[in-house]
């Protein structure tokens, strides 16, 4: 019996070593930092749970090449404790500047204080700390404005007539999700002809979006619009619409309006195919570039050249304007 245990343990250990090697090969590329003497090393305390982050990471790497800076990513995966530890680790590894994507806007204050005490320049990106002035520079999108822009689009499409829409909500423990929803509601006040008939919490996932839209289409056969807080749910919207033969292009009779936010490949394609009326593309290229640039400035002892906090407006694209603005939408540059 014991020999069997040994064999099994040995083989498990071998398998572990093999997978370690495998993981290490692809893992070290993005994580381990080079200690090049003349290259500034910036540590990014990141989160990698949703596809959107992939886009942000890619553009950080593009920006890093442009600014000739080396990056180290540490991913904390929803664990604020781990983020706190990783920030300290990055400092002890010699990173000269830290960019944080805060997982917990309140808890991150403590880490910012630690970094300030250690005299390491710190900036935040995308999610603002509770007190946005505790860092010298923050850049992010403006989810409230995005929601309002979406509302404006629905109002325009409704043209005074009754217009029923269904709202998918992003995660309600994230400011982005809450603000995108609030923006929509704020933008619709005073326009009673546009009615939100159903609010579906989706936690950014496409499966609840599918069932939510299915249910809404079933209950309201005159559903005229769908609000998606993230482009990742566009395929789910397509699926629900196709099932009841309502996947119709913009401008054609029976079209159900889709307004979405993110600017990822799905959004880009959706607008090009003219199924999505409006996609509010987050300005990822500039967000990452400004974030990195200002952090490097701080590291080099220079002042921040952009007033903080900076909220970058999203790039609104519709089927008629996508061709001209394609280069600005980050998702369009991610080919298959």
């Amino acid at each position: 019996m014991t020999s069997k245990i040994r064999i099994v343990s040995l083989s498990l250990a071998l398998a572990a070593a093999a997978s370690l090697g495998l993981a290490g090969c692809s893992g070290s590329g993005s994580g381990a930092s080079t200690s090049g003497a003349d290259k500034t090393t910036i540590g990014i305390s990141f989160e990698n749970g949703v596809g959107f982050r992939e886009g942000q990471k890619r553009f950080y790497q593009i920006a890093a090449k442009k600014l000739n800076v080396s990056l180290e990513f540490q991913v904390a995966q929803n664990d604020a404790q781990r983020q706190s530890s990783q920030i300290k680790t990055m400092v002890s590894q010699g990173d000269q500047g830290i960019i944080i994507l805060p997982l917990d806007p309140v808890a991150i204050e403590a880490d910012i204080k630690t970094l300030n005490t250690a005299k390491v320049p710190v900036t935040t990106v995308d999610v603002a700390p509770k007190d946005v002035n505790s860092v010298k520079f923050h850049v992010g999108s403006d989810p409230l404005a995005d929601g309002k822009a979406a509302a404006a689009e629905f109002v325009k499409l409704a043209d005074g007539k009754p217009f029923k829409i269904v709202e998918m909500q992003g995660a309600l423990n994230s400011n982005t999700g809450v603000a995108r929803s609030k923006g929509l509601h704020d933008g619709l006040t005073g326009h009673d002809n546009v009615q939100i008939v159903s609010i579906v919490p989706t936690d950014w996932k496409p499966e609840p979006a599918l069932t939510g839209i299915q249910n809404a289409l079933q209950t309201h056969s005159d559903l005229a619009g769908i609000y998606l807080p993230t482009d990742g749910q566009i395929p789910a919207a397509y699926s629900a619409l196709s099932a009841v033969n309502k996947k119709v292009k913009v401008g054609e009779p029976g079209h159900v309006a889709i307004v979405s936010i993110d600017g990822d490949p799905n959004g880009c394609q959706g607008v090009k195919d003219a199924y999505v009326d409006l996609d509010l593309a987050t300005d990822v290229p500039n967000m990452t570039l400004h974030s990195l640039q200002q952090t490097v400035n701080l590291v080099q002892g220079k002042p921040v050249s952009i007033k903080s906090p900076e909220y970058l407006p999203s790039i609104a694209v519709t089927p008629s304007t996508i061709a001209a603005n394609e280069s600005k939408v980050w998702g369009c540059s991610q080919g298959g």
Partner: protein
Amino acid sequence: MQRFSSRLSPQIVSVLGVIVIVIVIFSILSPGFLALGNVSNLLLQASSTAIAASGMTLVIMAGWIDLSIGSLMSLAVTIALAAAGVTSAAYGSSSIWTYFIVIGVSIAGGALNGVLIWALKVQPLLVTLGTMTIFSGIALHITSAGNRSASGPIQYLGRAVVFGIPLPVIVAVVVVVVIAFLLRRTPFGRYVTAIGGSERSARETGLPINRLRIVVFAISGLCAGIAGIITVGQVGTMQSTFGVGFEFTVITAVVVGGTSLTGGKGSVIGSALGAILLTLIDNGLNRVNASVYIYDVITGLVLLVAVLTDSVVMGRIRRMNVRIRQAGLERSQKTPST
């Protein structure tokens, strides 16, 4: 003497009872709940859970548990899509081979669970906890937590409609019937139930438990794979969160359906009804625009109520059986044997 079979009727009755109550409540709160279109939606939305719950019922009947089905589902679809060359959220298409790869990986992963439990000689709870972590880790490694487009042939199963009935519903019915048949009317099913009753006795009677275990977990994996194909085909995209927490939904459906976690007692039809009940609640809460926080609270409460009902009902039946047996004993003691 009429003995209440502890296998079928009371559990099904109590689940059906809860379903009826829920339907009544939601029909009042939201007219149109029972419209044909909504019922069709409901059954469609319940299909993948029902399929996975069938496989899980088999596992739990034997007194085991499988925590890895969500991650296995995700891994199988990930590998299949990667093999089809899909590397982004919006481009690339699956092929007909995608089906085979998902099925193959699901069965292999399930069988691996069975083998590991055999080799490591510890509870399935812990082993499947480990494989759950490994499977999801590998899946995310392949996609780097990005989204993957699930377009092309992989959508057929999830979206086809046959004679007005969504294909996933038909598949679910077939799977439920097949596994119920396996469980009740084949030696295999009897062995599985026997293991659930008492693994030691089963071993002493010479049952090849290790081999049976591999088969059972492979079936569970297969069911998870089918459920995954249906879900991802319907949604049209695979996110990094695909399958997360699915095992808990499925186990909830199985328990609510009356199957006992200690093994030896349960019903596949009950699990399917449990899946429908959970979908009913979700659908109903959706229609009344309930606060997001309420969803989980209600699911948790339903779970507790189901376990409570089951224990109360089973307690009553046990007492009734005891009384019947006692009455039978007394009678045979009074009448002299001829």
